[in-house]
């Protein structure tokens, strides 16, 4: 296992006018489960191919344990990958597939390792079968096993490995993968556009957007203190509510429709225009007159427990959509107020959270 470092990695395809990845800096310590989260087109696949060595990287930009691997072949980098759908050698048995990446080891050692991993993955019963006889989930488990076989593997890449699995299986697969990662102490980079997968799998998550890493942090940090509006908006379902306002004397203010000014809370930053963000979980409809005035349009039920219906309230404040996540009892369309937990308010300027931003990274 290795520590993975990106140092100002910039990559442009030949004949492309713009760089696909620009100035990526990231350190993934040994044995960390890291997730790269981004929508399609963010540059995830390119970064994946640069890490694996399918694409050569500029010198001095990718280090595995202080070795510049930019020009090394995948095999020399000791990188393995799990793909979106199970990739196995069709004519080999599962056991032969597992043994193939460690064909430099003695046969007995190969078998011992393969059986051990197969047991942990719960596919030891199908070791002698060919992939065609397996279910999709078993195949992907075998592919995951194959990626973990090399004794000296430095990095395991996972490219949306659960895409093909049915929703019911995803959770179990992710747990199996996570447990195995912890047991083996494998450095893993899990690439996905699915925030649930990223947040539940990883120790830390990097959010990739338009070829840049906007933020690297624990799942909690991404939720509580997003460094960039896009992180706030992209992480969370639905994402952060954003409204424009102004900071004066450390107070977050917005203009109400009738020309008045409303204080949302305290925000200890310099005076000036500011965009305020708060998650739907941090807001609730209330009757108190000092809340944010909104027009409630609809509710979306997400679940129920102990006789209470929970869900989303879809509302609007001066043309901006506002969501709150709360108990839906008694919520009716019409004018209402939204009370926001004042201490959780986040302020953004030029897209970046005040105090964070590229300079602060």
């Amino acid at each position, binding site marked *: 296992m290795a520590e993975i470092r990106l140092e100002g990695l910039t990559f442009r395809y030949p004949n492309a006018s713009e760089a696909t990845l620009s100035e990526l800096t990231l350190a993934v310590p040994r044995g960390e489960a890291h997730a790269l989260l981004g929508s399609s087109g963010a540059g995830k696949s390119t970064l994946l191919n640069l890490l*694996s*060595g*399918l694409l050569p990287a500029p010198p001095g930009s990718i280090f595995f344990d202080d070795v510049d691997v930019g020009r090394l*072949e*995948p*095999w020399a980098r000791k*990188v*393995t*990958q799990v*793909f*979106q*759908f199970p*990739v196995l*050698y*069709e*004519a*080999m048995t599962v056991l032969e597939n597992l043994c*193939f*990446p460690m064909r430099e080891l003695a046969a007995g050692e190969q078998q011992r390792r393969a059986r051990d991993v197969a047991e942990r993955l719960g596919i030891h019963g199908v070791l002698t*079968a*060919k992939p*065609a*006889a397996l279910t999709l989930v078993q195949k992907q488990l075998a592919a995951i096993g194959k990626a973990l076989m090399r004794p000296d593997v430095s990095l395991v890449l996972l490219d949306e490995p659960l895409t093909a699995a049915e929703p019911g299986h995803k959770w179990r697969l992710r747990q199996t993968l996570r447990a195995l990662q912890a047991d083996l102490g494998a450095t893993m980079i899990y690439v996905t556009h699915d925030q649930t997968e990223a947040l539940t799998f990883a120790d830390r998550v990097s959010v990739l957007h338009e070829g840049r890493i906007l933020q690297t942090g624990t799942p909690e940090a991404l939720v509580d203190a997003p460094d960039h509006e896009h992180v706030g908006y992209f992480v969370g379902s639905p994402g952060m509510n954003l409204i424009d306002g102004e900071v004066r004397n450390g107070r977050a203010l917005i203009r109400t429709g009738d020309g008045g000014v409303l204080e949302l809370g305290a925000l200890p930053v310099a005076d000036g225009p500011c965009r305020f963000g708060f998650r739907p979980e941090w807001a609730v409809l209330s009757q108190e007159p000092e809340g944010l005035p909104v027009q409630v349009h609809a509710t979306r039920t997400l679940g129920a427990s102990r006789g209470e219906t929970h869900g989303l309230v879809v509302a609007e404040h001066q043309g901006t959509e506002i969501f709150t996540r709360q108990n839906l009892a008694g919520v009716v369309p019409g004018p209402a107020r939204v009370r926001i937990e004042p201490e959780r308010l986040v302020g953004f300027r030029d897209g970046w959270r005040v105090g964070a931003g590229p300079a602060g990274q």
Partner: protein
Amino acid sequence: MNRPQNNRAWLGVLPVLLIVAFSAVIPLMTVVNYSVQDIFDVNTRLFVGFDWYRETLRDPRFLDALLRQLGFSALVLAIELPLGILVARAIPREGRWVGLILVLLAIPLLIPWNVVGTIWQLFARPDIGLFGQLVNGLGIEFNYTAEPLHAWVTLIMMDVWHWTSLVALLAFSGLTAIPAACYQAAVMDGAGSWQVFRHVELPRLTAVLVIAVLLRLMDSFMIYTEPFVLTGGGPGNSTTFLSQYLTSMAVGQFDLGPAAAFSVLYFLAVLLLCWLFYTSVIASDGERG
């Protein structure tokens, strides 16, 4: 098993049965009819049972032609299959040239068979043919009309030229269906070019290669036009294959009884070969699980 029986459904299949009868069964039965009788004219006929079959199977010329036929099919398959795969692997998978390459490859397949024979008849002529002259220029006295070996070499080359494209195009279509991730995974496993072919490509090409072998086996086993034009079966009988011997029997000598028995045997041989090949593939497929 209490399904309601409705015999009127048979009426529904009647048109198909009629078409099959006219296109296949009736002509075939005519041949079978001739093969068990000695027919002199409309009113004079003699039932001879399996005599024609016995006679054909004991005919040394038939057995020689059969042997040559098997040898020819085995040789062209042994060359065209690997060569076609090799060509297919050399074609780029994408890019602006792919279309042009495929069209160029397909050209031999679009040429009428007797024209192919004529092309090679001219091409290989030792006096004015480009190929014949070239070989003679190398100090080998090349003459496919006199030397059986030269005739065979020319014939095999002609068939390879004519049909390798078919194998290549089929194999190419199979290769393009292999997802890029399979290759990427193999690269990460440190697999070399041979291992990529053996473990990634070949298992996924099996289906198209079965079709390729089946087509080439049937076609080469029934080859007629090209050797007829190129060598006329000679020198001597050295390139006389089954179809040509059959034609000379039926059309040249008008031996309808033996020719009919020959036809039935020929048909059964093709059928048997294809069946043997197909079942062996299915069996090994089942083994692979």
